[in-house]
């Protein structure tokens, strides 16, 4: 299968495999990349999306109940996250932003680990090396450079693992993201820039960041790009598999813009009623990634009432365990505030810790 892409933006229109109504659309470039998917695998993608939406809804509820400090919903972006994450191997490495909880789930992050950061018990929920995925990056765009450096390392090591940077439409304005493209092109790094264009950076519409489709930016840096319907899990997977194959076989970086919509608030602290046009929101609701895939699978006869009931039960079970895991997270011990600042002893900090320990002893921990 060819991995050569034209230097310029691959697709001028948003590429689809499924129409918003769930009809199969012919796509000569993408079709081969998903031709091998078995009915079970298709169903797995569906289950992933349903479960992730359930986790996301539950997390929002937990935040409303005061159990989480904050939560960044991914509602509406399930296909973009599942389709891309499920294209990866376990030896690949993901550098996410803060919204990739769906990706994290697919990488095998434990349920309670998804919320440590948002409950405020830790700054990271998991060990990145256990799951091949860094923990949330909050500084917009910074992780795109990390992914590039990691990919350069893979190339040095002579392995065919790849790195993926996830980021949003707003992030494309940050200098770091452009620099990442410069470095990735310069060193032909096996990295995929996966941009979820969910139309918003908090209250700012994508039009403030870019006057041209975001996918058009990469070719000028020497990086081929694709623009894909981010609510079409198969199209996303096809694009991602194509890009990954290029990276594994020495083809260098690829940029993917997954066009989607943030159906929830930016975070649970946000109030989109101040800036969002409900008409446009309603239009996007009609393009829901899960409903679309449901229609497709039903058409294939894969989604009878039995299956649907099983999936719902699975999702409920995950939600229950997720909630229990969250509520069971212990508060960290006071003196751990001094841990892991350095990997080796640091006289100043050691003294400070010793003094605070004396303080706690005197006044009671």
């Amino acid at each position, binding site marked *: 299968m060819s991995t050569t892409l034209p230097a310029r933006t691959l697709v001028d229109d948003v590429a689809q495999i499924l129409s918003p109504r769930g009809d199969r659309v012919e796509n000569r470039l993408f079709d081969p990349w998903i031709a091998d998917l078995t009915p079970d695998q298709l169903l797995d993608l569906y289950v992933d999306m349903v479960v992730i939406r359930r986790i996301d809804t539950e997390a929002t509820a937990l935040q409303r109940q005061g159990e989480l*400090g*904050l939560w960044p919903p991914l509602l509406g972006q399930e296909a973009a996250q599942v389709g891309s994450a499920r294209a990866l191997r376990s030896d690949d490495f993901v550098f996410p932003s*803060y919204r990739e909880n769906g990706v994290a789930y697919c990488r095998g992050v434990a349920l309670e680990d998804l919320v440590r*950061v*948002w*409950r*405020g*018990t*830790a*700054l990271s929920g998991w060990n990145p090396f256990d799951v091949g995925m860094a923990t949330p990056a*909050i*500084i*917009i765009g910074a992780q795109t450079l990390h992914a590039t450096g990691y990919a350069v390392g893979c190339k040095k090591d002579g392995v065919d693992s790849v790195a993926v940077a996830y980021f949003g439409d*707003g*992030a494309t*304005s*940050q*200098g*770091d993201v452009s620099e990442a493209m410069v470095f990735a092109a310069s060193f032909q790094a096996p990295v995929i820039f996966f941009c979820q264009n969910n139309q918003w*950076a*908090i*209250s*700012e519409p994508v039009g*403030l*960041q870019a006057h041209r489709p975001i996918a058009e930016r990469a070719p000028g840096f020497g990086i081929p790009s694709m623009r894909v319907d981010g609510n079409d899990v198969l199209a996303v997977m096809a694009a991602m598999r194509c890009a990954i194959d290029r990276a594994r076989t020495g083809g260098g970086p690829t940029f993917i813009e997954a066009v989607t919509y943030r159906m929830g608030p930016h975070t649970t*602290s946000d*109030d989109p009623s*101040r*800036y969002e046009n409900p008409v446009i929101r309603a239009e996007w609701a009609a393009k829901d990634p899960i409903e679309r895939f449901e229609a497709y699978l039903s058409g294939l006869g894969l989604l009878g009432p039995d299956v649907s009931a099983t999936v719902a039960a699975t999702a409920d079970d995950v939600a229950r365990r997720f909630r229990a895991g969250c509520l069971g997270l212990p*508060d*960290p011990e*006071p003196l*751990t*505030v*001094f841990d892991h*600042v350095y990997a080796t002893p640091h006289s*100043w*900090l050691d*003294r*400070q810790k*010793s*003094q*605070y320990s*004396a*303080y706690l*002893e*005197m*006044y009671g921990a």
Partner: protein
Amino acid sequence: MSLTLAKAINSGLRRSLDDDPSVVLLGEDIGALGGVFRVTDGLQQEFGTERVMDMPLAESGIIGMAVGLAFRGYRPVCEIQFDGFIYPAFDQIVAQVAKLHFRTGGAVRMPITIRVPYGGGIGAVEHHSESPEAYFAHTSGLRVVTCSNPQDAHTMIRQAIACDDPVLFFEPKRRYWTTGEVDEELDTLPLGAARVVVPGSDVTLVAYGPLVATAVDAAAAASDGGLSVEVIDLRSLSPVDFGTVEASVRKTGRLVVTHEAQQFGGLGAEIAASITERCFEFLEAAPARVTGFDVPYPPARLEDHFLPDLDRMLDAVDRVLGRQNSLTGWRA
């Protein structure tokens, strides 16, 4: 008029926009949303998108563009959404905003105000609770100020915008909802002046921004124990009004400085060192510092330990008074 600190800044911004057509507001989400803390609420509606401009998501771009606008005679007021997001703009601030007036022998002025909600105590995720003021106070060419109450918030933001020098304006985000009387016409102190907020005679306690309220509480608690603690609200961090601090220490002979920022190389070190230089012979004890620990800002469930509180301040007061305290008998 009784206002929250956030609303007091909002009204200060409104007055500045009204008074001077060269004032423009730049920032992420400051328009329709009114900023994530609503500090710019309603201003774009009132003054239009040419005066209150939502910016692309790039802090270096925002400050760099402000520099260009200043070259053109504008007086930009930039909002950095949270303390931890100022670093991408560090180069433009330190190498351009701070230096251009000096570089051009006074030909080019940089009357840029950079508003930064800062500090912890709101249970936030990483990068949303930092206190980076020392970086900027150490940078020649910048002025650095911070407010602790609604009246100062209102007056000082207007003074900062009117100032012909660049000003870093640090807003104590956990005090945004503090309410207080605001008189828009009041203009008692110059921007660079500190204020004695609680007079006292035994110990001088210097605080600024979010910790002024805590220091005042500590002074009240001390006074219950028969101690007279003088609390100074520094307000300006560059320059520091050492005259006011020195006068107090000459009287008390004992100094405690507190801030949320990390201790090593923080403002507390400068205040301790400068006051020691200026009135060594008046000091009865070494100045003590009560600060955040020298760790990155920790997760929310640990921030109560990181943040200086009333008890840690009182412990330091005991220390400079030579009373029993947590370090009595402590050995490294």
